[in-house]
């Protein structure tokens, strides 16, 4: 475990159970961990190991059946739906496997949406997004719709959306899974640069060994339990 200042994320005996008919499956089974600020951590494991569910719990997208989760000093398991939405808006950036950009919005509009929710004035939004686009190689693509962009470009827009509001934590669910290896590597370069330059905490799930190699910390999950953390 890498040790940096205060934890950005803390979980205590978190458990999430899914029911299917008579069967119950613990997708996350008593996970306790701390992820410190500035870490570039990967949660690895085979399909069904609980990576995405753990990310959902950390990201306040889902509620645990047991245990507690803290983001900075806020215990998120006690928050209402609206409060969790506010927390996501202000403190967490999300990068999804399938980009999940809004088709009717341009690249720039997609990237500035979180800032819009935060009530940032339009001129400031444009300035910050333009600056971010320049940093991650999207300059000139501001007005393109998602379908006019390649997969790698769309994921860069998703990264811009996740990071432009300066969240304390960015959660990425298999961010390179839909990309070829060269594009995936370039994208990881961007994420790593942002991690080192801005100090944003990155937690991403993956089962790709090349991605795991880039992580400063690797948390291995098997059947919802931490098998290894180094």
């Amino acid at each position, binding site marked *: 475990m890498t040790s940096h200042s205060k934890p950005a994320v803390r979980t205590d005996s978190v458990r999430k159970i899914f029911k299917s008919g008579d069967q119950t499956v613990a997708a996350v089974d008593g996970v306790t961990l701390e992820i410190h600020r500035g870490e570039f951590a990967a949660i690895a494991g085979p399909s069904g190991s609980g990576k995405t569910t753990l990310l959902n719990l950390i990201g306040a997208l889902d509620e645990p059946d047991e245990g507690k989760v803290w983001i900075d000093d806020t215990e998120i398991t006690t928050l209402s739906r609206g409060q969790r*939405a506010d927390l996501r808006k*202000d403190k967490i950036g999300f990068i*999804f496997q399938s980009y999940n950009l809004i088709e009717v919005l341009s690249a720039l509009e997609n990237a500035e949406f979180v800032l819009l929710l935060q009530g940032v004035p339009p001129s400031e939004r444009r300035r910050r997004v333009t600056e971010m686009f320049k940093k991650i190689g999207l300059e000139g693509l501001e007005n393109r719709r998602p379908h006019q962009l390649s997969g790698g470009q769309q994921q860069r827009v998703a990264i811009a959306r996740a990071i432009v509001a300066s969240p304390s934590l960015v959660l990425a669910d298999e961010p390179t899974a839909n990309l070829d290896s060269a594009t995936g590597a370039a994208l990881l370069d961007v994420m790593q640069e942002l991690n080192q330059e801005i100090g944003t905490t990155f937690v991403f799930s993956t089962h790709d060994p090349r991605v795991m190699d880039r992580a400063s910390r690797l948390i291995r999950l098997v059947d919802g339990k931490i098998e290894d953390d180094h």
Partner: protein
Amino acid sequence: MAIGMIMLAFVLSIMAGMKRDMINQGTSLLLGHMQIHAKDYRPDRSIYDAIPAGRSDLLGQLRGDPSVLGAAPRVSTFGLASSGNKSIGVEILGMEAAAERNVTILHEKLIEGSLPEPSEQSQIAIGELAAKALGVSLGGEVILIAQAADGSLGNDLFTVSGIFRSGLDLLDGGMAILDLGAAQSLIALPAETIHEIALRTASPTDAKTVASALERTLANPAIEVSPWQTLTPELSSWVAMSDSWSWIMYVIVFSLAAISVLNTMLMAVFERLREFGVLAAIGMKPRSVVALIVIEVTALAGVSLLVAIAIGTPLLRRVVGKGIDLSSFSDGFSVTGVAVGPIIRGDWVFGDFAVGAALLFVCAALAGLYPAMRAAAVDPARLTRGEIR
């Protein structure tokens, strides 16, 4: 929604036009917007219950009132009209043709000749059906017999000066119009004695208010000023029913609009589940998602309104201007004693259009609430679990 708005405007326009025409036809043919009688005159209409005031003084007072645009004195009774060996029962109405032109449009309904004027040889105007029943034509002679006020049986010989066609069988087959003086002479009434004064005001819709004000101005407890609503309760009921129909139309059109909005927005929400999942994941609050959908629905209603105005205005202009000609189906019909022509014209009822449009906005926004709540309820975790495509 735009089609609903056009339908609503069309129906409201037609109904308002029909209401206007019904009231105009009902009041302008013979009734007037209001009438003045002796307190006990209606409903028996006895010839002895004349207006207990000097005709000249009363008419002078009325014609000096700014709310009165025309005042026509009348006497009225019932009698028998005969020609040769044919006879029919008639209502006899004595009137001043010149004064009547300022109040009613009976003169416009003449198909031959003119209304009776004072002359040595007493004149009579009868309806087309009465002329046929009596077998007389213009210039022919008709004998009228009626109970006179002095107890005698009044009778006189009249020359047919005019034949009218009002479209109402009751008038065309049973009304005899005389000059006021001739009628008074027939039933032995003094020249100052009249039974009623028909009045025209600026608008029939103000009749009740003007009648009350006039009654206060005249300050004569022996006479009453009755608006058309009191004189023809059937027409008044029809108008009230027509207003009820407008509300029924509102309900039908708004229900259709609400169903269409509900359907459209539910489909849109189901197609955009991923989008709402993303919005929720990146921090949009459920109530903001509800607001977003309601704004979208309101914008949809706004666009529909613009489309409705663009398409509906020329349509309504035609309906109001040229009207809908139903003459190939019918020559017209009568409702509650009012003749309605075969051309139905609409009316510009901007107030009703505005109310309709505003209600449609409210209705659309309310109908959008359920899809909005469905959108707000999308669980963002389903997005990462791959349950939303």
